[in-house]
């Protein structure tokens, strides 16, 4: 079966078909049966389409175009790698800002984890905070109580995340769509009230210590550690979507029955999606534990699960760059750092204090900004721009990847498919 790619540009298969089809029947038909006039309508249509497709396929940016693209890439690299650690930067950021940046990277991993489930497999999880939380406490337990190394702890946390997600996935195979959402909700509730309340595991009210390894003790080096893991997760996610498994997942999300009749093992691939999602979530949990250094169980409430769903959907399902940006945005908004970073900018340019406006004029404390703005963005996303941030930035992303700037790139009409049934 053919699966159309999400971006509007035609793939190589489509280009081949258009060149082959028109040539053959017109010639033969004219020789054999003289009465029939040659049918030339489709030939004309194809010729009309050809040059456009050709132009896009063979498009190479000019020298200036390359320079502009490289400049944007450099600025992006500077923003991610150098800006938070005050390297080659006119701004000076405090340690807490770097710490917030690490958190943004961790949230991005969580967002990618949820994207595998929600975007690729079409299953909603309302208990993702439990996966992350169990990863966090496992890692802390391994480092503090078992006195094992940090890397081993991360591996154990990721592995446990994989196992528990696979078990929940096995359950989900017997349930469909909306009922599975209920199970994850109950699982999250159970983890929060039962598992996270075991004092031996979570340290009770005071929280559990989760020391960082000596090499990554400072907030700066820890930021690069988080970035490194984010890069690994991005790579794995990219390989997943490009592999046979990724195409199988896409097919079974569109329609499980059709996929199964094409020989796709629905159960195995759904379980795979769960396992990958759990692996990422456990990894994010471990990073979160050592980022906070003291991990408290109140952190993993239902609101966090909703925030995860929110940032993934607003980021744009199935769009890696969108999910990363959306997650980072919500992480910074959640911790209040986005506003404090924007404050000097608005002060100098507009002579206007955003923080004063929000806390004073509107009367909204900073810690609740994400809670008020987030749902509004979510509702706007699903009703008006189902592709989320990924859709908004698609033209720029395509351009940066060396293609023509196309305002309509990455247009999607629906977030999910119509075949998720209860």
């Amino acid at each position, binding site marked *: 079966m053919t699966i159309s790619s999400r971006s509007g540009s035609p793939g190589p298969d489509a280009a081949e078909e258009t060149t082959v089809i028109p040539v053959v029947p017109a010639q033969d038909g004219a020789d054999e049966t003289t009465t029939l006039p040659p049918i030339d309508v489709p030939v004309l249509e194809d010729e009309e389409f050809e040059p456009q497709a050709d132009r896009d396929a063979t498009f190479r940016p000019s020298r200036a175009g390359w320079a502009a693209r490289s400049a944007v890439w450099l600025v992006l690299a500077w923003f991610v790698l150098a800006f938070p650690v005050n390297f080659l930067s006119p701004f000076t950021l405090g340690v807490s800002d770097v710490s917030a940046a690490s958190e943004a990277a961790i949230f991005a991993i969580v967002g990618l984890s949820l994207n595998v489930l*929600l975007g690729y497999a*079409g299953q*909603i999880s*309302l208990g993702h905070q439990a996966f992350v939380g169990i990863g966090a406490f496992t890692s802390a337990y391994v480092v503090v109580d078992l006195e094992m190394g940090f890397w081993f702890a991360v591996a154990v946390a990721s592995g446990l995340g994989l196992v528990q997600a696979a078990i929940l996935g096995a*359950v989900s195979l*017997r*349930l469909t*769509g*909306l*009922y599975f*959402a*209920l*199970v994850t*909700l*109950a*699982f999250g*509730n*159970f983890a*929060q*009230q*039962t598992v996270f*309340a*075991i004092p031996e595991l979570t340290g009770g009210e005071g929280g559990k210590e989760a020391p960082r390894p000596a090499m990554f003790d400072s907030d700066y080096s820890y930021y690069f550690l988080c970035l490194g893991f984010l890069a690994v997760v991005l790579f794995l996610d990219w390989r997943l979507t490009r592999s046979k498994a990724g195409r199988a997942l896409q097919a079974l999300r569109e329609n499980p029955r059709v996929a199964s009749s094409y020989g796709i093992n629905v159960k195995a691939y759904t379980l795979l999606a769960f396992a990958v999602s759990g692996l990422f979530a456990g990894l994010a949990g471990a990073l979160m534990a050592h980022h906070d250094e003291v991990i408290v169980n109140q952190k993993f*409430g*239902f*609101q966090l699960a*909703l925030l995860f*769903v*929110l940032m993934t*959907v607003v980021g744009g399902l199935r769009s890696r760059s969108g999910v990363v940006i959306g997650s980072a945005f919500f992480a910074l908004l959640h911790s209040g750092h986005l506003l404090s970073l924007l404050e000097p900018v608005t002060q100098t340019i507009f002579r206007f204090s955003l923080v004063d406006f929000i806390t004073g004029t509107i*009367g*909204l*404390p900073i810690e*609740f900004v994400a*809670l*008020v703005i*987030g*749902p*509004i963005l*979510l*509702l706007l996303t*699903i*009703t008006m721009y*189902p592709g989320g941030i990924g859709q908004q930035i698609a033209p720029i992303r395509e351009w940066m990847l060396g293609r023509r700037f196309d305002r309509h790139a990455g247009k999607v009409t*629906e*977030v*999910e*498919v*119509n*075949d*998720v*049934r*209860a």
Partner: protein
Amino acid sequence: MNLPLYEQLALALTAGVLRGAVYALVALGIVLVFRGSGIFNFAQAEFGTTGLFAAYWALEIKGWGYPTSFLFGMGVAIALGLLTERLVIHPLRDSSRVTLLVGTAGVALAAIGFQFWWFNETLVMSMPKINEAFFMTPWGAVVTVQELITLGVLAVVAVGLALFFRSPSGLAIQAAQQEPVASELVGISVRRVSMLTWGIAAALGGLAGILAGPYLTFSAGFLSFGAVGALLPGFMAAVLAGMRSMPGAVAGGLLVGCIEQLSSLSILDGAVPGAGALVLFVFLLGVLLVRPQGIFVGKVATA
């Protein structure tokens, strides 16, 4: 000091039925919305909390009387329900069900956000009861009049809904969900029916919120996952009712309340913390895996 087991059992069942009444009210709203539009409404409990906040505001800040405040709270809850239908459900009517689920979860989160915004100075709020009286049952359980009122309201609402679904409007709701196009052809306005469903569901949520509010102190998100976390138990009750049966939702609500309270028995308590959540999770899994069509379902009415 531990009470004998049968006394604990009596106490747990009393508390379970009383708490279950709130769950049943939420479950009724969930079942109604599912029957009317085929949607899992995660905002159901937040209609209640928002109504409770409005009633609290009217009573404590504005100093209106209790009946006026109660009606005001109900009005706000219903308005929120209708707004949800207009702004979220209607534009998304052709989307997949998971999109709609995310939409209702977004409404719930937005409601919580606005509650925080509205009352961010007040940390702990408590709504006065309709009647502060309480009494002891012979087996030693404390029952407040407020809880009995909730139970009574539940009974009235359940009977009322059962009758309503036999009336032309009630039948129209089902018809519109099953065959929207055909319903339009026989003169049912799907739009008005949808508004009606969400209005009634929000009113049920409002009742649950304003009646359960005085049980304890409350804060934002009270009825979803706060002190009286009725969202998940409400959904469980609805699942027990096969997402369709109104009497089943009431029975399911009471049963879920009892099961949750049974976990507080001393033979279970102390083994694991938060046994209630564990028992509910296992129970939900069991029901969904063994009898996904629900327990309290009689003959499925198709008309």
